[in-house]
């Protein structure tokens, strides 16, 4: 059972020494309770207190790190089954899949296509984080190693799908510094694979013929002292894979069965081979329900645009709304003479408003000022959107760039009109309709 901040505080030395980095022991305790700080950051905790706390604050699902340097990703560490209960912390990572059974041209084409997908969406860079390199039993080892080299050269985190001990060892020798995942342990080879992974310092992927076998194999690996694992929940078909993935996560979080408290890998190249559209459906499904890594045949913009948008939404902290950067956003080719409209930096509001403005086809500039990520009325009520904040933003950031002196404000804060006119001399303040959907008509009729 998790401890609350007060309970943790009671175990601290209560000296406010600040050595943990927090200004007070109370602040530190609150952060630990939130999972925002490690209890070990306090150098003055008694052993006894540490042990109690470690047990109580241990998460139901382990946080597993893969990759190295700026390509290090965190998997797992979830504490809830539904995002509204708190938040999901580790976003699903996507891998494209290569195989020793493919020819070179195919592989090169896939890697090239993958590299093209690299863009920013609301402050987040979107690209394929991982490459899954599958070893097809019986294929030449050299060919596999060549592919591993090629894949490693892309700088993405590798997932080595390989159950052959010798091949796996050779592959790890090539790429272990990049901290790949060795997805190769099963009931038959668990011990050997575990040793390989531990020696190389990489995460081990575990699979099983069914959930029982998977469970036993994980227990066995934990018995060997290896708790640096991910679980390949891919089954024979879509239905089994979904059942596996959901039940593993649910066992860990709801039933606190820590044996299944690891991130998952779902390989769509196995259950929906060569079926691009089916993979689109399934990658959405497994992003929603509990895939930590989802493997696809390949990546292109038509898949990435919806997928990364979905992921960005699902992994947003419900308490902290997504925001867009304050600034001037020209729409439909708006220039310095185009009409200005303003709204808040809450991403949802921005998207809805900019979408409607785009639909109107009228060139304009959307001015976004900092409103602490709140919606219009909330920001207004909280004083984050006022005639003062808008006027300040316009004077400091807009007046020297835009010649137009017409500013449209959200209908819900019509009340700001008079004040704004006083604070922004030379500007004409116009009140927009109450709802964004009415903007298309408003813009078309506005002259």
């Amino acid at each position, binding site marked *: 059972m998790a401890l609350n901040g*007060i309970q943790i505080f009671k175990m601290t030395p209560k000296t406010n020494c600040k050595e943990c980095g927090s200004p007070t022991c109370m602040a530190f305790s*609150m952060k630990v309770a939130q999972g925002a700080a490690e209890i070990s950051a306090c150098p003055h905790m008694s052993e006894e207190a540490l042990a109690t706390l470690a047990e109580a604050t241990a998460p139901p699902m382990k946080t597993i790190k893969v990759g190295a340097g700026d390509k290090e990703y965190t998997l797992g560490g979830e504490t809830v089954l539904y995002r509204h209960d708190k938040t999901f912390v580790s976003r699903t990572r996507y891998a494209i899949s290569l195989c020793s059974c493919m020819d070179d041209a195919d592989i090169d084409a896939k890697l090239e296509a993958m590299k093209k997908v690299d863009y920013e969406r609301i402050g987040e860079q979107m690209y394929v984080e991982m490459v899954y390199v599958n070893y097809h039993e019986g294929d030449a080892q050299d060919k596999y190693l060549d592919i591993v080299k090629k894949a490693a050269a892309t700088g993405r985190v590798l997932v080595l799908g390989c159950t052959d001990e010798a091949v796996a060892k050779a592959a790890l020798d090539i790429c272990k510094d990049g901290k790949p995942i060795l997805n190769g342990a099963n009931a038959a080879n668990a011990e050997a694979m575990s040793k390989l992974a531990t020696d190389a310092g990489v995460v081990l992927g575990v699979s099983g013929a069914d959930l029982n076998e998977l469970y036993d194999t994980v227990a066995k690996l934990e018995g060997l002292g290896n708790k640096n694992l991910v679980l390949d929940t891919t089954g024979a078909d879509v239905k089994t894979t979904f059942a596996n993935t959901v039940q593993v996560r649910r066992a860990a979080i709801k039933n606190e069965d820590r044996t299944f408290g690891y991130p998952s890998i779902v390989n769509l190249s196995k259950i929906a081979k060569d079926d691009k559209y089916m993979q689109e459906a399934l990658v959405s499904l497994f992003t929603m329900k509990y895939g930590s890594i989802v493997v696809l045949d390949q990546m292109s913009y038509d898949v990435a645009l919806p997928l990364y948008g979905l992921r960005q939404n699902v992994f947003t902290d419900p308490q902290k709304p997504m925001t867009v950067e304050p600034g001037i956003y020209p729409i439909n080719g708006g220039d310095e003479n185009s009409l200005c409209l303003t709204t808040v930096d809450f991403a949802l509001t921005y998207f809805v408003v900019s979408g409607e403005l785009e639909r109107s086809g009228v060139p304009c500039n959307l001015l976004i000022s900092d409103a602490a990520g709140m919606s219009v009325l909330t920001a207004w009520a909280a004083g984050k959107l006022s005639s003062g904040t808008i006027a300040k933003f316009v004077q400091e950031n807009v007046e020297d760039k835009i010649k137009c002196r017409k500013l449209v404000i959200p209908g819900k804060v*019509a009340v700001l009109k008079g004040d704004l006119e*006083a604070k922004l001399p030379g500007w004409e303040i116009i009140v927009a309709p109450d709802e964004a959907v009415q903007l298309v008509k408003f813009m078309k009729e506005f002259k």
Partner: protein
Amino acid sequence: MLLFDIVFNGNDKMYAEAEEAVNAAIAKYGEEKAVGFPETAYALAAYYAETGDKITNLKECKAGLEYIKTQMPRERRLDSVFKSGVATALAAEILEVTKYIEGDPYEGISEGAMTDAQLRELGVPLVVYDIPCVALIIHAAPSVQEAVDLVKSYQSQGNFVCLVGGIIDQLKEANYNMGFNVRVYPIGDNISCAAHAVSVASRVAMVFGNITPGDKVGLQKYHFERFRCFVNAFGPLDEKTVACGAGAIYYGFPVITNDMEYTPSVPKSLIKLADVSKFNKASLEARNIKIKVTNVDIPVAFATAFEGEIIRRGDMQVEFDGSRIDSFELVQTKELTEIEDHKIEVVGPELDEFEQGSKNGIAFIVEVAGKKMQPDFEPVFERKFHAWINGAEGIMHTGQRDMIRIRVSKDAFEAGFRAKHFGEILYAKIKGEFEAVVDKCQVTVYTDQAECSRLRHEVAQASFDKRDERLSSLTDENVDVFYTCILCQAFSPSHVCIVTPERLGLCGAVSWLDAKATHELEPDGACQVVEKVGLIDENLGAYESFNEAVHKYSMGALERITMYSIMVDPMTSCGCFECICGIEPFSNGVAIANREYAGMTPLGMTFPELASMTGGGVQTPGFMGHGKHFIGSKKFMAAEGGIQRIVWMPKELKDVVADRLNATAKELYGIDNFADMIGDETVTDSDPEALFAFLTEKGHPALGLDPLM
């Protein structure tokens, strides 16, 4: 003759006519001859709804009459009058159906029975009250003009008017447009035609009310509660008409007549009124019908877009300024009988008579009445005046109560805006937005300076004082119920506020009165009643009913809650909190930060850091979100010793709450100027030791209290 005899006689006559018609028809066509009204699946709907039996042929008509005979008791009891009334209508329906044997008997303007298709078309607006009600007018009005005026008055309110007898000829004479689609439906000349109106009511109950045919009790209840209908019967009344009227009254449809002969009049059921021009009002009132007000009848535009408009001095026609000249706005609750709906009166000169650019006084007294109206809603309405009046183009309004300022622009004045239009705005908005509780609204606009002054001091001030007194006298103990507020669940799904008189919502925007009003106005909305049942711990403010409420409204996320503790199951926060308090362990008290305060606190956390830990509907013992107003409340962490635990808050916040805080501290602990004992950022913004030293110097009571944890 007594009413009993009139109804019994009327009933007997109608029955005899029906019996004769059925017998004649059987003689002519035989018993098996099919009967029915055109295009309906409900046979003789009035009979079907009452009995559950469908009459489809003459044989069944005869059997039906035999049954009706059993429903005609002759004991001199009120119940017999009602039963006979219904029996009269059923007999009339059988009489009517015999007329249809050889095809539609109604030719020309009269339409007779309504088809199911028409009924469904009519039924939808009827059950949603787009058609406020059905008026059944029987016989000829004293004059053609009165007939026309009455029908027109109902029609203009959107009512559906059914006509029987002489009034049809009167309208025809006046070339008045009649027909189903203009909602004036002439049924026929004979009083037995009233059965077609009853049939409409019965079918609406079956189709829209899911009333099972034969469920007499359900049918009567549906009509009484849901089907809004009344009867206007012009004298001289005959016995059959009176008997039908008895049936109408049984179903809850009041009868208004100008025949002053018959005795007795029964309030809300049988109303005698000589003046036909008063029929409309009396009828609607008797049936409790409110006519929806949607448009604001003023010569300038009305929209929220004008709310932010500022009228500068140069553009101003006239100004009313409460800070200089006595002005006020006031809502007063009255009895229904005391006021007249939509009466708008201006006392004093019109705007034309004021000098351009002059400063004057104005007062609005808005009197409202309604069965569900409560004086507690007055301030809730009043607070809306600002937005409403501002909504008019060219009008600016600020402040409330007796500190209002209003400017009317030259443009608005030229467009025809006058003092009475303030009344129109207030009337329309009150009726529109508070329809659920306001049945009648009357507005008086005072521009007479002497009257403004007199009323301000004699009436308004007294009302405001009384209200303030009521507010301050409201305690958690002297009210029976609290309210939930889940307005924020869109952002914070598991958060539930419980709002009490002494603990307003943590956003600072929802007081107990607001929550109460919200609940009355929108019974299925965000504010629901929480009773105080199953006391667990009085000191903590823990009740089983509170636990049930938070469990239910947080969809199971929360199990327990206390009202007055921040240590044991404290109330959760959504994220809209005005303030957050948290334990400052070294001083054995709590520090409070408000949203506007950007700096550090002795807790080692800023407001945003505190907010991220306290928000989201999770219980964080030792920390709690709350409204500013709560700081001066006797219930502020009462379980842990109350406001004497407050050791630190930002200076600006302290200035806002000092008066109330000091008063409460004086009352509870006998401490003077308690606010001065509380640290702020000028003492320290981050150092608990410096704070401790300050508190020691001041002799702050928290240092001597039991340890908080």
